[in-house]
């Protein structure tokens, strides 16, 4: 592992690079609080206490949740953090995303960016977390990703609620001429029980905001919580069952035009020759705009309605440049395998002496396998879209996005306006899964708005454009070797994993003026950072030079490392003659929380009890985003193929703020993993994606979905994430179940290439 000196140097360089050379004044800015972005744009009779709380004279209480609501429930759980301390119910507040602002920085998103397992709490790892967390604040990086929202907001948003309540109490005490200590709060009202008098928050808000915010506030003990720790009614549910227009595609503005894009089907390539005449003359077409951006090149069609734009985009005739990357699956696989045997990797874990332990291993004690997984698209239900208007030098962008301050920065640069003339309005999202951390759809809309003479343009991609222009989950290959001892336990495990680097890919299209920094740990996350103790244990991450755009796909590197690590563990168990669950427990003795998860899920699934013929179970475990997750899948052979009957999940999240939302996320994450495992892949021919829509890149349907049983544990002393943690163990649990059922070991995804599922 790297030493502290190396780590801090690399990290500081990373910070300097990302900040564009702003590090010299870094410490000052790190200490200084960002301005409250709500100060501008307050309604009449409305007051703001801090970036998270607004209260109007009529007692309308607005809580800002500055994170992307893409289904994971942040508009409920983060609002509950503030509401808990403010002593108001979730049904009596309004929740708003708020503007793009540095005040809404996410420090957790970078804090776990270092090459350390979550359970490593040594000096080096903790120093790294502190430095990286500070960098998150320094950069003002407002983003939703890495399953960080509740961890990042837990202290800050509770403090915001408590500070506002403290100020309201002080103002009420003055107004009622009683000591603050005699006052109580409930449901947005301050009550003086002794005299029976009360005032609403709204009535004292104007006085309260003039009181200095307390430098320290006492937060409630867990035993005092009324909202947190219990399942809440989601604040967005009524809008979602009534079809309310809350999504990016639903934006409606006066004088609005409509549009779509037709981008080069080969990434990074430009149109070599084009004929727009046919498209331009189609009914309803207003204008066709050439788009040339760091994300891609092609054409934007502005029209009087979306359908007219779609038809015209289809009618564009163009020849596109050649691909700069291996053009088809065979060539891509070859490039990945060449990387695998190169010496370009970084050993993110290197315990003992793996080479030595493997060198003199007897053949019959060695387990060896190669694994391979494909590119994957996010396929959010809501296709990529954004609406933009450039009028009087001000750019407004309505965007369902996961990174508002980056959207603001990149759109300002693309259109040529200062950042303070850009307003990003973040809508609800019809799925995100990491896709909406990208800036492409926002930038295209902004550039098209530049050509629309002050009118807003709502730019919606077709599903075909969406599938063919993603920032894909990278393809990856792995070569694994283990040596077993006389008892069948692994004494050496060597894992080499090669994959294109999402970090390098994102830097190229989002911050092309910066150079990528350090090794990308995501290539091997889910393999190098697992709670197993093996005497000689090496995991090497190797970046493969394939420049097809890759990005953050729900659980990122864990999505395929879970499959690699846990299927290979299953192979080790079988080779050593040890029950797969028992093997995990024996290798995890240094991590009692992990053992408890394994025991819990095994107990729920009655692991080890005999099953009827034609049924089998598979097990997998992945620690990701700070949460420890074990999953068991039961499959059954039926005349129509293998049916995934049931799935059990046990997850230790450290602290469960909303059990129902957590359970929904675990199931959602697991099915996301199963969908990919049974049938999804993005393949290439002639440098172009071959899939285009749900007929050839489908996901699990209701009739395929297994039954679920979920248990949430709180044994670990740190809170973990929720949104992505169900995904990594799903594919390996399924593949291991298929092995148990059929005796066939499948080492490539999707399994549907080799097995037929119902």
């Amino acid at each position: 592992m790297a030493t502290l000196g190396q780590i801090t140097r690399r990290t500081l360089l990373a910070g300097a690079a990302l900040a564009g050379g702003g590090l010299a004044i870094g410490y000052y800015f790190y200490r200084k609080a960002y301005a409250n972005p709500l100060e501008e744009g307050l309604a009449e009779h409305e007051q703001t206490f801090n970036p998270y709380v607004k209260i109007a004279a009529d007692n309308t209480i607005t809580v800002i949740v500055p994170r992307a609501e893409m289904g994971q429930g942040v508009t409920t759980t983060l609002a509950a953090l503030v509401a808990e301390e403010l002593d108001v119910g979730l049904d009596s507040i309004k929740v708003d995303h708020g503007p793009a602002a540095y005040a809404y920085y996410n420090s957790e998103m970078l804090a776990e960016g270092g090459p350390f397992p979550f359970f490593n709490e040594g000096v080096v790892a903790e120093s790294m977390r502190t430095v990286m967390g500070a960098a998150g604040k320094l950069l003002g990086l407002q983003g939703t990703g890495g399953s960080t929202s509740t961890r990042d907001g837990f202290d800050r948003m509770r403090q915001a609620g408590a500070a506002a309540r403290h100020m309201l109490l002080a103002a009420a005490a003055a107004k009622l001429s009683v000591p603050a200590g005699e006052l109580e709060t409930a449901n947005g009202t301050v009550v003086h029980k002794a005299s029976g008098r009360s005032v609403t928050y709204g009535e004292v808000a104007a006085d309260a905001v003039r009181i200095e915010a307390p430098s320290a506030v006492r937060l409630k003990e867990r035993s005092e919580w009324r909202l947190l720790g219990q399942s809440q009614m989601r604040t967005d549910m009524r809008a979602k069952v009534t079809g309310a227009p809350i999504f990016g595609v639903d934006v409606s503005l006066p004088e609005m035009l409509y549009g779509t894009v037709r981008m080069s089907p080969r990434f990074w390539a430009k149109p070599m020759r084009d004929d727009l005449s046919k498209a331009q003359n189609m009914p309803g077409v207003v204008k066709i705009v050439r788009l040339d951006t760091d994300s891609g090149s092609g054409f934007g069609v502005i029209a009087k309605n979306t359908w007219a734009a779609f038809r015209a985009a289809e009618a564009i005739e163009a020849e596109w440049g050649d691909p700069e990357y291996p053009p088809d699956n065979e060539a891509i696989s070859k490039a990945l395998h060449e990387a695998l045997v190169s010496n370009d990797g970084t050993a993110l874990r290197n315990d003992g002496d793996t080479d030595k332990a493997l060198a003199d291993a007897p053949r019959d004690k060695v387990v060896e396998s190669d694994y391979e997984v494909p590119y994957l698209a996010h396929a959010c239900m809501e296709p990529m879209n954004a609406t933009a208007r450039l009028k009087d030098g001000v750019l407004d962008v309505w965007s369902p996005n996961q990174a508002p301050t980056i959207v603001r920065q990149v759109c300002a640069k693309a259109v040529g306006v200062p950042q303070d003339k850009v307003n990003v309005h973040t809508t609800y999202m019809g799925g995100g899964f990491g896709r909406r951390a990208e800036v492409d759809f926002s930038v295209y809309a902004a550039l098209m708005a530049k050509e629309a003479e002050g009118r807003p343009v709502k730019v919606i991609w077709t599903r075909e454009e969406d599938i063919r222009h993603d920032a894909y989950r990278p393809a990856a290959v792995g070569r694994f070797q283990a040596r077993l001892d006389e008892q069948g336990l692994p004494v050496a495990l060597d894992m080499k994993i090669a994959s294109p680097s999402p970090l390098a890919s994102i830097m190229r299209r989002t911050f092309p003026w910066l150079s990528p920094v350090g090794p990308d740990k995501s290539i091997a996350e889910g393999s190098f950072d697992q709670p197993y103790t093996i005497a000689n244990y090496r995991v090497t991450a190797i970046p493969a030079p394939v420049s097809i755009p890759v990005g953050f796909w729900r659980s990122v590197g864990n999505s395929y490392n879970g499959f690699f690590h846990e299927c290979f563990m299953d192979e080790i168990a079988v080779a050593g003659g040890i029950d797969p669950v028992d093997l995990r427990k024996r290798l995890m003795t240094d991590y009692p929380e992990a053992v408890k998860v394994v025991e819990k899920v095994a107990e729920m699934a009655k692991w080890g009890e005999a099953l009827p013929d034609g049924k089998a179970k598979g097990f997998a475990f992945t620690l990701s985003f700070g949460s420890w997750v074990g999953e068991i899948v039961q499959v059954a052979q039926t005349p129509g193929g293998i049916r995934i009957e049931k799935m059990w999940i046990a997850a230790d999240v450290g602290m469960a703020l909303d059990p129902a939302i957590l359970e929904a996320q675990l199931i959602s994450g697991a099915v996301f993993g199963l969908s990919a495992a049974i049938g999804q892949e993005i393949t290439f021919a002639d440098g172009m994606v071959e899939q285009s829509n749900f007929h050839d890149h489908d996901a699990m349907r209701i009739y395929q979905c297994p039954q679920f049983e979920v248990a949430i544990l709180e044994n670990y002393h740190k809170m973990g994430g929720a949104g992505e943690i169900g995904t990594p163990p799903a594919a390996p649990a399924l593949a291991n179940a298929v092995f148990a059922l059929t005796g066939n070991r499948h080492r490539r995804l999707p399994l549907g290439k080799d097995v037929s599922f119902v």
Partner: protein
Amino acid sequence: MRLTVNGEVIEIDADPEMPLLWALRDLAGIMGPKFGCGIAACGACTVHIMGEAVRSCSVAVGDVKSEITTIEGLSKDGTLHPVQQAWLEEQVAQCGYCQAGQIMSAVALLNVVADPTDDDIDNAMGGNLCRCSAYPKIRAAIKRAAAMKAGA
């Protein structure tokens, strides 16, 4: 061109070949039906025509001669339709984007089959994709709605 949507007659100026989905969304401002695929493969755009669940992305507006109901037409005077109420009580939605389509398919099912079995639900709802996988709760909500209607 005239359409009857949610009991109201609306006048729009549409190419008859335009898919009903875009006529509703872009011309009539009815945003409940969502665009997901454009090829009737995901169900996000589901509306009712004469009470039957139809993928509005794949029906030409010029071919629609009967009454259309969208999710906006389900609840009356702020009172949720029993299926919407069941959806609320089961806390079904995550991102919510597919839910208008899911609810329209479920309402159409329950209009024909008062007490659907799991197979009935699989058959009726298989065309409605949900990337968040709210499926277990969708199933529970349909059963809850059936029970509510039976008890009403």
